């Protein structure tokens, strides 16, 4: 079968290769991929950014892609899924035995591995997945949204589990990438009165989308985020989600938060941040890291789809065959695409 793989630990080095279809081991199912997404992390893998290089696969090639969904092709009888089921894959492989797994905090598992990062992922035709990492999609869910469930779960974890806005809050989302926009959708669904989304000049299309989602867009090249926040509420923002991954994000987030406000860090800067901590003390700011998702997040995301599917689908700007992966990576890197869905349609090419 065809697969898109990182073939060496260097910049670029993502190629379409031929590999044997995976064999099924006990406790696994074979999933035929129907749709996969591109994440900023995939771009980092492509560019071999230092933050990724440290945490990446021990050997090459490794198949890229951790946002993917498909249909169960083969599995032993079990009580989770059956052949023919539409499923989304939780690509976070947790050991199930460590302290954090016992707490239900799989994202902190001592032995955590990510499909598409440490082990083979979903930019291919077939993949073997542990049964407990499969989530069956109920029949009423629009299949178009299914490849988005993984990134949506990152947003659900941060907004609906880690740093939940209070009803009527002023919420600021820094960063208009897919996760930022998904956080905006969820903050609105959680009862925020106003959701401000900031972006760069190159994010113009994404900021228009933010406005379409009911958020207040701020192009930081044209106006100061702090001014917009002050106009809306002189006290400042109740909750700030830092989704830019810029090293300067934390300092700015802490400045626009109200006293005793909460700052959630979702973005991943590759270099250290400098922040004046005394105001954090004096203003009693809470800074909360929020990473990926836990097993409990996935059923919650699926429950929330009734409310957010329409908005989430607005993020999909491109639907491309998987063989066009290089163009897709370019589009995402340049900010020309918001969300790209890739389809493994090799025969057609």
């Amino acid at each position, binding site marked *: 079968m065809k697969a898109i793989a990182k073939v060496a630990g260097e910049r670029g080095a993502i190629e379409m290769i031929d590999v044997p279809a995976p064999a099924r081991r006990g406790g696994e199912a074979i999933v035929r991929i129907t749709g996969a997404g591109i994440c900023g992390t995939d771009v980092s893998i492509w560019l071999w950014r230092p933050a990724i290089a440290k945490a990446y696969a021990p050997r090459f090639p490794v198949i890229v892609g951790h946002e993917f969904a498909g249909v169960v092709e083969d599995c032993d009888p079990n009580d989770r899924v059956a052949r023919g089921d539409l499923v989304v894959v939780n690509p976070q492989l947790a050991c199930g035995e460590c302290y954090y797994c016992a707490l239900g905090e799989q994202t902190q598992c001592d032995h955590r591995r990510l499909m598409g990062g440490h082990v083979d992922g979903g930019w291919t035709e077939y993949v073997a997945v542990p049964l407990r990492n499969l989530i069956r999609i109920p029949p009423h869910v629009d299949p178009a949204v299914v490849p988005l469930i993984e990134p949506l779960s990152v947003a659900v974890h941060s907004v609906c589990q880690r740093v939940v806005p209070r009803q009527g809050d002023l919420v600021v989302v820094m960063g208009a990438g897919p996760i930022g926009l998904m956080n905006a959708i969820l903050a609105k669904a959680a009862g925020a*009165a106003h959701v401000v989304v900031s972006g760069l000049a190159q994010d113009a299309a994404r900021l228009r989308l933010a406005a379409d989602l009911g958020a207040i867009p701020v192009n930081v090249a044209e106006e100061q985020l702090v001014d917009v926040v002050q106009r809306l509420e002189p006290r400042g923002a109740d909750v700030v989600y830092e989704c830019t991954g810029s090293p300067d994000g934390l300092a700015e987030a802490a400045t626009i938060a109200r006293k005793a406000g909460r700052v959630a860090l979702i973005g991943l800067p590759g270099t250290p941040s400098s922040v004046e901590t005394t105001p954090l003390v004096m203003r009693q700011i809470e800074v909360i890291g929020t990473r990926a998702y836990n097993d409990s997040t996935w059923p919650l995301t699926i429950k929330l789809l009734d409310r957010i599917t329409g908005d989430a689908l607005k993020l999909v700007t491109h639907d491309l065959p998987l063989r066009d992966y290089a163009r897709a990576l370019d589009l995402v890197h340049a900010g020309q695409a918001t969300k790209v869905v890739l389809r493994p349609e090799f025969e057609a090419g």
Partner: protein
Amino acid sequence: MRAVVKTARGPGNIAVMDAPVPVPGPGEALVRILRSGLCGTDLLVYDDVYRGRRRPVPCPLVIGHEAAGEVVELGPAADGPARGTRVGIEAVTGCGLCFQCARGRYNLCQDWHHIGLTTAGALAEFAVVPAASLLPLPAAVSLDNAAFLEPLATVMNTLERVRPLPGTPAAVVGPGPFGLLHVQALHAAGAGPILVFGRPGDEARLEIARHVGADEAIVADRGAAVGSAARWTDGIGMGLVIETAGTPEGVQTALEITAGGGTLATLGLVRHTEIDALQVMRKDMTWVGVVAAVRRHWAEAIRLVASGRVNPSALITHRMPLGAALDGFAALRAREAVKVMYDLAD
């Protein structure tokens, strides 16, 4: 002025009467009432079954505590919004000295006062209240919605206590105005599915429940409610249950449909109910009571209404002049009405 007065103890004894316009004393304000809503508690006062925390309802007393109006005059040494300001009126004041008051929870002050229950209320053309109880209204808050701020502030207290998470299956037992305000707020909070259970006679209220965010709103006895909750949650039960029925059956139903690890908030007024207390332990659940509200809940209620995320006035089924006050009592008692709103504006 015209006022609705509980004239003496005993069932009934409520009349629309002429009374002198009150004069604000030190620290007080005179407010011209423009909207005033009727609450289930007013029916308890009517029936003489309401029992206050420390003191009985002093008669004669102008009743009513859900109102909005405009400032007419500030008394001596009163610091408050300027004449003509549209205001909501906080219902509760504390002694300001005790432990609960010191930590900002004057809704728990043993020496509390409550307009319309211990001091003169707002089912009247004018009311004198502490100037510190007034909250200026932003333009985005209509007078109709402002008259709901008192119950909505208590809903905000509920939300503070139970912190509903988006996607939490939630049920409201008792589709009165208070229950339906909770439905609106839970809907705004992204909770769901939202189920509402009533008893025979609640059909009109359940219809409104469906319009303000309920996924299912049905007449249900305990067994039917348990069945519905199980159907909507794959047998798990409701993560959050709000009891606003004020009946023993309502409390029993609410307890029964709460999921393992779930939270039940009781707001109904019912004294004696036989329950299977072991369920509370078996379910590892949290049972909280919610009483009234303090100023931060009012501030949150105002901003939530101003944001448009809730629209309490959707619950107004009956609108009438104060002169017809007793017709409103009858409509509320018969559960034909959800919210009876007295319109006192010209």
